[in-house]
């Protein structure tokens, strides 16, 4: 171990670094195993100090607040499924039109038996189609997500990686950028490479980022949205204030739980 790594890791664990020093160290952690070990060393060795502090009883409503936020995350996660259900309902209306057409056709053939058979066939097709399509949509629902929040921790943007490798960005709140400026999404996967633009965001609808534009999706990967001049950053790097931030994680919630 180097003294420099020991000291840096110690200062980090003691919380004695300013924001830029913290950012630099966290960026270095990715490629420096010795530094990671030193951080874990200090975290572990200082931990017994925590046991000297008297416990404080949390208020009764604190768990409720946590539970509500966890539910909010799950709801955001479930919005995809709700969209799928809405689409299902559209499909059912379309199938209902087909059924009416089939009934009319059957009546046209002049036999009650034929009408019943046609209706049964349509019903079978309707059920089977829905089940198959629902299963297909479930398979498409992402397990890698990131929720980007503003300074007050309000969730504003949901990112979901899809099975085809693309990323879908869904606004969870009012994302309107002031004065025709652009909201631009960024990710940081490799600190040496710096932030990569994932392009401008639509304020009122989901934005799809194609797989080719994504450097990858890894746990704890940083995503940010910055405010940029109309059309996006002129430099290829964030130039305006960061409005929301979040990290990617693999959502443990099965899609069907939502």
């Amino acid at each position, binding site marked *: *171990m180097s*003294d420099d790594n*020991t*000291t840096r890791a*110690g*200062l980090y*664990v*003691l*919380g*004695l670094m*300013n*924001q830029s020093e*913290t950012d630099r160290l966290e960026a270095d952690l990715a490629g420096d195993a010795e530094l990671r070990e030193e951080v*874990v*060393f200090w*975290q*572990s*060795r*200082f*931990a*017994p*100090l*925590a*046991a*000297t*502090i*008297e*416990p*404080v*009883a*949390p*208020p009764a409503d*604190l*768990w409720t*607040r*946590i*539970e509500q*936020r*966890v539910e909010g*995350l799950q709801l955001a996660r479930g919005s995809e499924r709700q969209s799928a259900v809405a689409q299902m309902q559209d499909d059912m209306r379309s199938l209902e039109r087909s059924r009416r057409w089939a009934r009319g056709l059957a009546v046209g053939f002049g036999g009650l038996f034929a009408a019943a058979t046609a209706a049964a066939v349509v019903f079978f097709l309707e059920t089977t189609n829905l089940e198959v399509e629902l299963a297909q949509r479930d398979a498409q629902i992402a397990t890698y997500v990131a*929720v980007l929040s503003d*300074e007050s*921790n309000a969730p504003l943007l949901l990112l979901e990686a899809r099975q085809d490798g693309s990323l879908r960005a869904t606004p969870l709140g009012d994302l309107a950028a002031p004065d025709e400026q652009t909201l631009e999404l960024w990710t940081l996967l490799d600190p040496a490479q710096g932030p990569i633009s994932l392009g401008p965001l639509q304020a009122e609808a989901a934005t799809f980022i194609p797989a080719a534009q994504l450097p990858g999706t890894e*746990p*704890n990967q940083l995503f940010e949205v910055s405010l940029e001049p109309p059309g996006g950053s002129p430099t290829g790097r964030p130039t305006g204030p960061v409005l929301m931030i979040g*990290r990617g*994680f*693999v959502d*443990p*919630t*099965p899609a069907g*739980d939502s």
Partner: protein
Amino acid sequence: MSPRCQGDPSVKQKPDSRIDGYIERIAGGDRRALRSLYNETSAPLLGLAVRLMADRAEAENVLQDAFVTVWQGAQAFDARRETGWIWLITILRHTAYKRLRSRGREASFADPETSPETRNEETAAIDALVSRMDDDRLKHCLEALESEERRSILLAYLDGLSQSQIADRLMAPLASIRDWVRHGLESLRKCLS
């Protein structure tokens, strides 16, 4: 304090395998495990947060954020690298420091009218915590440090103070605090290795 923590001698040592088990279940989407983890650890964690933030409402916000992070990030927990309890403390402290930095720690530091005597008493009290520690090795190594080095490190770790706040508390120049912390860390590292 949660009923399960009150008077429970296991709290100080933290039954890590149980905590590890909860976190692994949380990683699988089990919200009941999150509740169990909260029941078991929220009181000691809130104690830490209150101490770090010196503000009860802020400490509750830190605890809230930390448990949401646990829910979101449980899959990143690796029981081979660290215990669940250390992982939880790390998340809590990380969350607390983020808030401390964003609110500007210099402005938030204690009442400027606190008398030097009171500051001395508060500082001496932190030494008493070391004597209550269960970990003999860390206790020995901390006690072997110069008192200024030990107090600088403890004020940072336990009270969430920045270097300039520590300088204020110890009534010493900022440059001295920097030296004490660095030298203290180097000595501790050698003693603990």
